[in-house]
């Protein structure tokens, strides 16, 4: 149903777009290319994606092309196609496709497909040049597996003398998204972001809900579906004082109405990080400490248990199964030391060393043995055009 609705909105967008003269159409885009390496014996997870095994090119590769067309002074149509590299393939999707109506200089309404805005960088997570790292801290960004939603939002901008406010409520539904081996969707997604901006930075608070979110996992060849209501509460700050740059975020994921609350593979969790950087000309060396925690520890599912959404007649666990403390992101801490160098006004080079230490009995973000730590080295080039 959601898919049909999005096809209709795409058709409407294309019809609108076809009536626009070429003079009103603007193309722009962004791209990232990278290589990651380290002592990985298994796929490593980056944000919502698996980025690769051992040294790999292509893991952080992203290309986005945006076509923006102004129908008139108040209405514009934007479509953003996103090509992304995963372990061994590329996927192309319409990340954004929406009609924007500017009601007044301080109020605009957007309708269509947009990013699910649960954390600070949600809306420009794919645009590498907009942030200091090769990829956003996974302890926070893996917590939100829903990438996009179809619906509408309102952007209110309130101007003050020394401070401006941006208020952004949204409502819609989230289509299927592949995340860490699970397919997820949400029937109803809604929330609000309130952001305070000053000359030196911004402070943002978001509450985002995904109701009737369904995640289908493949466990030993059997699809198990978990259905639940999710609430994300996040706060983020980005602050710049002279050459000093500070970015920090905390996100809390609450699960409600989980029909299998005793099944602890998906649980409430908190992800956080603190980044400090210091600009030296076009160089930005930075250090990030990130972590995640959960109230639930690992659990053992005894032999003969059923899986959520799978009848006992189809499958029961043949032996005791260890269920890690979180099915989407295993708990860990990480230290990242990196440098970003802007070698032109529209391109940046990034180099990063990251030490990842999983919590006791936790698997960390890579599927090895619980408790193992690992180091990775990442390199990326980001451009905007």
């Amino acid at each position, binding site marked *: 149903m959601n898919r049909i609705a999005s096809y209709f909105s795409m058709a409407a967008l294309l019809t609108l777009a076809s009536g626009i003269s070429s003079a009103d159409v603007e193309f*722009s885009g*962004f791209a990232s290319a990278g290589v990651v390496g380290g002592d990985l014996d298994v796929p490593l997870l980056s944000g919502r994606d698996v980025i690769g095994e051992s040294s790999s090119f292509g893991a952080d590769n992203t290309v*986005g092309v*945006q076509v*923006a067309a102004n129908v008139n002074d108040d209405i*514009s149509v*934007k479509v*953003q196609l996103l090509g992304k590299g995963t372990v061994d393939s590329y996927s192309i999707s319409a990340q*954004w496709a*929406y009609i*924007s109506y500017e009601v007044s*200089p*301080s109020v605009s309404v*957007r309708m269509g497909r947009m*990013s699910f805005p649960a954390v600070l960088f949600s*809306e*420009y997570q794919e*645009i590498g*040049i*907009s942030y200091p790292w090769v990829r956003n801290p996974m302890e926070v960004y893996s917590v939100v597996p829903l990438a996009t939603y179809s619906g509408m939002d309102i*952007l209110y901008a309130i*101007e003050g003398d020394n401070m*401006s406010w941006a208020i952004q409520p949204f409502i819609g539904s989230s289509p299927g998204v592949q995340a860490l081996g699970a397919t997820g969707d949400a029937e109803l997604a809604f929330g609000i972001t309130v952001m305070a*901006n000053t*000359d030196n930075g911004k402070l943002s608070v978001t509450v985002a809900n995904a109701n009737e979110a369904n995640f289908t996992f493949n466990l030993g060849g059997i699809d198990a579906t978990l259905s639940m209501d999710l609430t994300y509460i996040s706060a983020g700050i980005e602050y710049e004082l002279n050459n000093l740059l500070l970015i920090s975020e905390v996100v809390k994921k609450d699960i409600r109405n989980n029909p299998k609350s005793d099944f602890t593979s998906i649980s409430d969790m908190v992800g956080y990080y603190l980044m400090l950087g210091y600009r030296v000309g*076009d160089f930005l060396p930075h250090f990030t400490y990130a972590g995640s925690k959960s109230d639930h520890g690992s659990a053992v599912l005894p032999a003969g248990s059923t899986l959520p959404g799978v009848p006992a007649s189809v499958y029961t666990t043949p032996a005791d199964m260890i269920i890690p403390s979180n099915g989407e992101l295993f708990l860990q801490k990480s230290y990242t030391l990196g440098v970003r160098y*802007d070698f*032109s*006004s*529209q391109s*940046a080079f990034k180099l990063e060393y990251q030490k990842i230490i999983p919590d006791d009995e936790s698997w960390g973000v890579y599927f090895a043995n619980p408790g193992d730590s690992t180091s990775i080295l990442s390199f990326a080039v980001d451009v*905007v055009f």
Partner: protein
Amino acid sequence: MKKFIVSIFIIFPLLFLGSASSYAGLVVVVHPANSMQAISKEDLKRIYLSKKKEFSDGSLISPLDHPKDSETKKTFYKKVVGKSLSQVSSYWSRLIFTGKGIPPRVMRGDEEIKVWVAGHPEGIGYINKKSIDDSVKVILTIK
């Protein structure tokens, strides 16, 4: 030898003159009929970051910019916005690809900016001091 010392004394001041004249200052210009007589650096910064979109009378502002990587643009953003062009580009990448802002219109240089501002009461631009003429009104000098 004496000749050499004398020429150093002549050439050195000339060198300084040369470097001083390469930056004679920038000015901010609007349409002559615009009621605005002056603008603060803070307001100007907010206009060029798309945080301030209206003049005090409620009419929309159309800011104009110089081509990417131009020296004039580099100087303006350093002195007014306090950001390097790469920081400015990162800033806009967040707004452009999320539909939250439209960057200033890019013109070819001082002459094109003057012509546009002279023909549009909503226009605002910055040009080199030496390009000033009667077609536009100066509301701020950036030193």
